[in-house]
């Protein structure tokens, strides 16, 4: 067996880098699932918006939905609520930064428009998240973007148009691109 060990060791060393790239399952635990199955639950919407589902909506369509489902907490047009003021600025007049800490709730503050869709879809309305249709989420997203002066009242928001919306505060964040490991900085940074 000594011979085979001499052959095996260099082979193992050669094999090591490829093991690091394509790991083989070690424990064979867990149930594989298909891409179709993933599509059925994957509504995690990143900045690119690739996962956005079918559907569409405009601010005009969103207004009555907002009045019915959102106004109780966020106030008329999202401006005077008891919780989280969603609107700063006005149609046609987007609020520019810098923002104060207490102004962060406004959609005008968000770096990406896709976050508005993602968050309404996953977490709103409290206390019954998950009760809005995708169409309603598109319409509400359009409504909030319109009230914040970012899009027009009749602009259609859908899987193609929403990720392309340019947010006025996109460059209001530091570091510009999140990096890990972070740059060396003092501990208070």
């Amino acid at each position, binding site marked *: 067996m000594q011979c085979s060990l001499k052959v095996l060791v260099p082979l193992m060393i050669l094999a090591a880098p490829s093991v690091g790239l394509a790991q083989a*399952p070690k424990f064979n635990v867990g149930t594989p699932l298909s891409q179709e199955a993933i599509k059925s639950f994957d509504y995690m919407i990143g900045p690119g918006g690739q996962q956005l589902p079918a559907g569409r909506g405009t601010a005009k369509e969103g207004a009555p939905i907002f009045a019915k489902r959102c106004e109780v907490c966020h106030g008329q047009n999202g401006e005077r609520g008891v*919780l989280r003021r969603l609107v700063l600025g006005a149609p046609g007049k987007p609020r520019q930064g810098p923002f104060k*800490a*207490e102004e962060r709730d406004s959609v005008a503050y968000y770096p990406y428009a896709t976050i508005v869709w*993602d968050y309404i879809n996953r977490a709103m309305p409290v206390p019954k*998240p998950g009760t809005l249709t995708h169409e309603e989420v598109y319409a509400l997203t359009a409504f909030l973007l319109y009230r914040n002066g970012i899009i027009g009242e009749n602009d259609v928001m859908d899987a193609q148009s929403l990720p392309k919306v340019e947010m006025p505060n996109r460059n209001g*964040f530091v570091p510009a691109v999140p990096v890990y490991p*972070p740059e060396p900085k003092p501990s208070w940074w």
Partner: protein
Amino acid sequence: MESNEPGRRRFLKQAAALAGVGVGAGAGADWAARGQAAKPEVKDSHLNDEPLRRGVPSRRGVRMSVDHITYYTPLQDYNGIITPANLHFVQQHSSHFPEIDAQTHTLTVHGEVDRPLTFTVDDLKSLPSVSRVHFLQCHANSSPFQHGAGNANMGPSVQYVHGMTSCSEWTGVPLSVLLNECGLKKEASWLVSEGADPGKFTHTVPLGKAMDDVMVAYGQNGEPLRVEQGYPIRLLVPGWEAPFSVKYLSHIKVTDQPFHAWNESMNHSIPRADIGGKSRWYHFQFAPKSIITRPSAGLTPLKKGYVQITGVAWTGAGVVTKVEISTDNGRSWKESKLQTPVHSKAHTRFTYDWNWDGEEAVLMSRATDEKGDFQLSRFDLYKAWGLSDEDAMKPVRGAIHTNAIQPWRVARDGSVHDAMFS
């Protein structure tokens, strides 16, 4: 009818929560703040709601709003370095805790992986486990203005100002084991985790950290996770802002770029003067911090003679190497004793023997960690953030990562006060 009961109770509570929004408009929509030290034995001193009351002793600050549930750890009563699970702080971003069946709950890992997999809780428990002692801390901890300062029901200030940190022995499977089972694609660089709570809490984690010391935890201090701590499973991201440690973990999506979920992009970013009013986002690790828990403001007045000064220190960088104590308002410092073993990214108990002579004194603690970082005074910290001394005393919402030195003033009558905010 029994099966309808939780649903009905939840409905009643939600109705009450919504009613509270109207009533509590002036008071930040808080509709209950209860349960402080006066009568620790009183039953039902918390909300009359079974999921909330489960395992929760009466002696703790609780704040409720329509979209948040907050518990503060009573640091003044806490000994050693392990917080009892039922005293662990809570910052729940929803109106109620989910009741999840561990038999049917699953964790699905997908995205930039070769083999998307779904794990049952039993699957996770069958994999190699680790147990490690780690602190958790809300990034807004120690920001007194937004946490009920001056509210007598919230208990002594060490609890409501600093009580959003706790420390446990967590047991679970390293996340690297699960990611290796799925096989990472070469594009993989970040991931986003999602919980099964009502708002499906999400948070982005860089892959480098995920493969380092992150675990999927199912045990806390030798028992299953409590409902309010994420039962049946949660992510545990040591040394970093607690929102990374997503509770009720149900999905992990591996991505090729930062995901920019609502929490890290919006809710947990903070505009700062030192960067021209732009917002600091993607805070990861906590700087060193220490708090003297006894004596502290509002506790039993001191008597002349021997006084043990004690508290806890922690740092996201690793181990706390030194905690110095000053009893003369920061003019001189002496090293305290650290309880051993000292764990990495964990509460570290310090003690210091002091002889009080009956004169006015100001007590401070200052932690130093293995990287040589140490705590600053509140004014120096705010100065670093581009703010003036006046700013440092203003009730600003959203002060985060506050690790300033906390001074306690001992008056001649032995009473102890918050030297910064009283």
